[in-house]
Each structure stands twice: as structure tokens, then as C-alpha cells.
């Protein structure tokens, strides 16, 4: 019987069925970071347990690292305690740690693929909801909580119920100025922020066939914002070409065997899906959010929703709450909304191609007066490549601050925070109230090029107009 990739990977990693009907699932690759792991190591010690497979466990530090200071100790004593705790835990249990001195540090979802650790057919877990990013390689990757991190550390397994699979086809070709970020914002807007509950999303169709690995990662990254715990793309030649030669990719004869296995793990033609959604690339425009969850999006040419025109009472209340927080006017165009901060980075859009694409258009332009613009590469590896290509210089010359690698202002656990009710044009993944470090701070999610367009305009703008893209 033809099977989906999800079914194949799930079956291959099933240890046994547990008493309550869940599956004991083998986790092939476990990624950890400083925020959600320390308590798990504490629990492990309390139980007198060891890490079962330290060679399949990889650590990095991302959430709390300052992006404008390399020296330690960090000014924030709690942040300093967290990095030290991770160092201690990795040393004690024999876990590879891509620490800041290695030159390989960065956001965990950027480091895994960059190092070639993330591969097709794997099960991957990490105490971070954006772990779905790794699905871009045809892996089944789950964000987990701290108790589950303990489970994976101790047993290399976790208890989980199988997901249903929804195939999302995006047909046709994206128009100029429309990016992977717009595709996922469009999907979430269409299916809702909880539309994916109980599902893994399998993304496919011409748009995904043509996408680079980095574009696939951007889409898979935000699966969880649509409620889907995992999201993936079937592996293909693009996947293999990306992985070849990376430090943890198989070599020699092992490479050939791996590629054979990876081909075989892709969903079989004619396999059964629990649901299929068809979308047309031509319907997708540069998309921005106007509210306080990633499903509250609209195309740059649309107007902000009016609660008076809402159907259900629920929808009306949701719009009112969002507009009150965002301080936006019902029915007004989103275009032209003044911004205070522009943030380019995060596990969603902090990769080489994101900076490359922006630099191509930003050259010779200036960030508008009064806008604080920061560019934060997702990893030390990305930073180095950008610096080798002179991309950092384009950003600096235009008035962006060029920072060191980390999660930065996506969730503001480091010193990069909004102040008061500042409005941020952001390439990150969440526009929740308070997400960027100030309880009254405001976030508008958009693609990296749209962030650059807003930065140079001083307000939310259509990148196609600002950078004179062919329409």
C-alpha cells in the first residue's frame, strides 16, 4: 500500500505501543538549547539517570545571547547562569555543544541544517516549537516540552500519538516580490491558527518543487503557527544537493546508501492523505499581519478589517482586541502604517538567502530617519558567509546595525527589545502581545524584503513599489 513520508518515518521509529495507546517513538536526533533544557537535566539528576545517546544529542545557545557583545560574563546574570548551566550539562553528559567559541553557534533550527545534522527520514525533537523547520528536509520534527526533553535525554524516546497528514499543494508560480514567508502567512490566514491541530502538514506542488531548502525551511518553520505540530516537504534533488559535503552528512559509499534511503522515504504516489488543500500561487501577494496572531494577515494592498463588518461576535471581539493593541484604525490601509523598528532575522528568516535577497535591493538605499533597523544573522555560519560576500557592508551602509547571531528580537530574551508601544516590522514568526519584549510593543510580520521596504520608507510599504520590482 502506498504510504506517506509521515507514515514511513513513524513506523520506522516506533519502539512499541504504550498502555494508554500512544506510541513510544525513537527520536533519532535531539537538539537542545539553554532555555528549555536546564530543568530537564535537573529532573534527570533527580532520577539518577544518564543521557542514553549523547552522540545523537546536539546543543547550541541562541535565545539569551546578546547580539552586540561577545565578551562574558553577560551583563544579565540570569542569561549568564543559563549559558554556564548548558556548558556544565553538556560537559557532564558528553554532548556536542556548538558554543560561541566554535564559530558554529546560532539559532538551533539554523545550526542543525547548516551542519548537515538534519537529514531526510529522521525523527527530530527539540524543546522549541519551531522545530518543525527541520521538516523541510523530509524529517518528522517535533517541538517538545521540558518533561519530554527529560524523556528523550533518558530514553531517546518519547510518548506521542500519531498525527493525521494534510497535504497542502501550492500550484503555479509565485509573482515577483512574493516569498516563502508570504506563502506560509497566506496558508495560516487561510486555514487558521488552529486549523492544523492534530495534523502534520505535507507541503508540495510546483512552488515547493522550485523552492530552495532555505525557502522550504521558512514555510515549515511556521507550521506550528497554524497549529500543526509538524510540517514537511518530501526530499528531492534540492535536498540532497544542500546536504552534500556538510560536516555531519554521510560520506563516500555511505552517502550513496543514504540518498537511496532518502529517495525511498518520500511519500509514495497515490498515498492516502487525511485532508488535501489546493492553493494557487497567483493568489498570494506580499502578506503582512495586522493583529496579534499570525493568522491575522492581509495582503499589502488590503485594508485593515473593520469589526463592524465582522460576521460572528467572536470574530468581532478578536478584531477589536487586536486593533486596540495594535493601535490601528479599522478600514484604513495597512500600507503607510508608521514603524519604529525593523528587525531582520530569526529562525524563520535569518538565513543567507534572506540577507542576500534584501542586500540585492537595499544597496544604495538608506534606512528612514527615526527607524531603528537591526539585521541579525541566524548563525555564526550565516554571519561569516554574509561578511565574505560583503552583505554586512550593504546593511551597515544603509543604516542597519549588523549584529551577532542569535534569536534576538524575535522573542527578546536578550537585550534586544521593543520599548513601550514601538511598532516593529519583523521577519520573525510571532506577533503575540508582548512577544518582542515590551508588553505594549507591536509587531507586524512580513518577509525580509518587506522589512527592508518598511525600514527605508519609515512605514509599512509594498516592497514591489519601493524596490521597483517588475510586476
Amino acid at each position: 500500500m502506498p504510504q506517506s513520508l509521515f507514515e514511513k518515518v513513524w513506523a520506522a521509529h516506533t519502539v512499541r505501543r504504550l498502555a494508554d495507546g500512544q506510541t513510544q517513538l525513537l527520536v533519532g536526533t535531539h537538539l537542545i538549547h539553554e532555555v528549555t533544557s536546564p530543568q530537564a537535566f535537573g529532573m534527570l539528576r533527580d532520577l539518577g539517570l544518564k543521557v542514553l545517546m549523547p552522540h545523537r544529542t546536539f546543543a547550541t545557545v541562541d535565545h539569551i545571547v546578546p547580539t552586540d557583545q561577545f565578551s562574558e560574563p553577560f551583563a544579565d546574570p540570569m542569561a549568564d547562569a543559563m549559558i554556564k548551566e548548558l556548558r556544565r550539562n553538556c560537559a557532564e553528559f558528553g554532548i556536542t555543544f556548538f558554543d560561541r567559541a566554535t564559530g558554529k553557534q546560532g539559532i538551533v533550527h539554523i545550526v542543525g541544517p547548516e551542519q548537515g545534522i538534519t537529514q531526510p527520514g529522521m525523527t527530530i525533537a527539540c524543546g522549541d516549537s519551531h522545530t518543525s523547520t527541520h521538516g523541510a528536509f523530509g524529517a518528522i520534527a517535533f517541538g517538545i516540552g521540558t518533561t519530554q526533553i527529560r524523556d528523550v535525554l533518558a530514553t531517546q524516546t518519547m510518548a506521542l500519538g500519531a498525527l493525521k497528514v494534510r497535504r497542502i499543494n501550492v500550484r503555479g508560480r509565485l509573482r515577483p516580490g512574493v516569498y516563502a514567508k508570504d506563502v506560509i502567512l497566506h496558508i495560516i490566514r487561510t486555514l487558521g491558527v488552529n486549523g492544523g491541530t492534530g495534523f502534520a502538514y505535507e507541503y508540495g506542488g510546483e512552488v515547493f518543487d522550485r523552492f530552495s531548502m532555505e525557502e522550504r525551511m521558512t514555510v515549515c518553520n511556521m507550521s506550528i503557527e497554524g497549529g500543526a505540530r509538524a510540517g514537511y516537504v518530501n526530499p528531492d534533488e534540492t535536498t540532497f544537493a544542500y546536504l552534500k559535503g556538510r560536516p555531519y552528512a554521510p560520506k563516500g559509499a555511505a552517502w550513496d546508501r543514504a540518498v537511496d534511503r532518502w529517495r525511498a522515504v518520500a511519500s509514495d504516489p497515490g498515498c492516502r492523505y487525511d485532508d488535501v488543500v489546493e492553493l494557487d500561487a497567483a493568489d498570494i501577494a506580499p502578506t503582512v499581519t495586522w493583529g496579534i496572531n499570525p493568522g491575522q494577515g492581509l495582503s499589502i494592498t488590503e485594508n485593515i478589517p473593520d469589526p463592524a463588518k465582522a460576521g460572528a461576535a467572536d470574530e468581532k471581539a478578536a478584531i477589536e482586541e487586536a486593533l486596540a493593541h495594535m493601535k490601528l484604525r479599522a478600514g484604513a490601509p495597512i500600507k503607510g502604517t508608521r514603524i519604529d523598528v525593523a528587525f531582520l532575522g530569526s529562525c524563520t528568516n535569518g538565513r543567507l538567502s534572506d540577507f542576500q535577497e534584501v542586500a540585492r535591493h537595499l544597496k544604495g538605499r538608506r534606512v528612514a530617519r527615526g527607524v531603528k533597523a537591526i539585521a541579525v544573522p541566524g548563525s555564526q555560519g550565516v554571519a561569516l558567509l554574509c561578511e565574505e560576500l560583503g552583505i554586512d557592508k550593504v546593511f551597515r551602509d544603509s543604516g542597519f546595525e549588523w549584529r551577532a547571531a542569535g534569536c534576538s528580537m524575535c522573542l527578546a530574551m536578550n537585550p534586544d527589545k521593543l520599548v513601550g508601544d514601538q511598532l516593529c516590522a519583523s521577519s520573525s514568526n510571532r506577533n503575540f502581545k508582548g512577544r518582542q519584549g515590551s508588553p505594549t510593543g507591536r509587531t507586524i510580520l512580513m518577509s525580509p524584503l518587506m522589512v527592508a521596504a518598511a525600514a527605508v520608507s519609515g512605514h509599512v510599504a509594498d516592497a514591489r513599489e519601493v524596490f521597483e520590482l517588475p510586476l
Partner: protein
Amino acid sequence: MPLAKITQVSGRGVYVAGNDLDTDRIIPARYLKCITFDGLGEFLFIDARRNPDGTDRRHALNDPRFKGAAILLSGANFGCGSSREHAPQAIQKAGFRAVVAEGFAEIFFGNSTAIGLPCLVASREDIASIAAAIDADPGLELTIDIAAGEILLGGRKFKAATRAAARDALVNGRWDPIGELLEGVGQVSGLAQTMEYLRQ
């Protein structure tokens, strides 16, 4: 150590209105800077409860009538957003022993169950009825019968179900899976040997 069988939760309730109450609202990221979960309860819903100048805002959790409540009621898609276990930990550390909502985000649901914090799904109408009843009389005691999937309030009964796997785990004292997972560890290395990427 055998786990407690969580068959029933009784206590007073508090209703925190809203849909899509995300993990950043339950516990903002700046309070995740910790290496233990102790003390998180204090920061539950902090940005909705406190003004930037430190004064209290109007919020059900600031209302002295609901102090000491053990059951948290809310709207749809509760706990959406991040995988931070800090969210259910903050709820539990604030003294809550169950959450009743119209629906839960998946990772939050799993994280809560694994720490013995039952999450039950009730209809919007029933949650509204319960919220109205406790608002009128905050001293009312609710009893959640987890096996039966019911909330008892005065003489009234409301449906409040959880997933079968979570229900069985809670009532049989298997909600923390570590014991069972450790029993299966003997089979793990054998299975790992069947996959080249897991061979050492």
C-alpha cells in the same frame, strides 16, 4: 515512585476570558530566564495583570474573590504558540490543578498532561454558564470527574472531556511517561541498529 491517580479535581474556579491565549501571554519570554521552574506562578498572565508602572490591572486573577481558585477556565485554542513547558508550569505553580477550555493547542496539552495538569474541553455555552455561576458566587465548588468526563457544579452537570489517552494516563497514574518509557529502553538500541544513521 508511583504516580498519583488523578481521577477527580475539586476546587473553586476562575474564568480568564479570551480565545487564542498564547504562551507568551501565559508567561512572557522575559520570565523564562531561569534554570528551575520554581517561582513561575507569580508571573502567570503577568502582562495582562500588571501595568508597566507596576500597578494592577483589572484581571480575574487579580480579583480577590477568586483567590485560591484551583480550576482555570478559558476560551478556544488555549496555550497556542511556543512549546515552553513554563506555561503549564506557571499555571500549576500558581495553584491550579486543572484547566477547562473550549480547546487546547497540541504541545500545551501534552506538556500539561505530562506534569499531571488535566486539560478538559467543554463547550462554549457550558463554560459561559459555569463562568456566570462562579461570578455570581465565587465560593462555589466545582468537581471535575475525569473518568466520567463531567464537571459537577451545584446540582448541575456539564460535559468536559479529555482525549482518551490523556484520560487513561491521568486516572491510572501514568501521566508522567518516564517509567513506561524506561521499561521500553531495552528495545531502543535494537531498533536503532536497524537504521544506519543511528548506528554508532
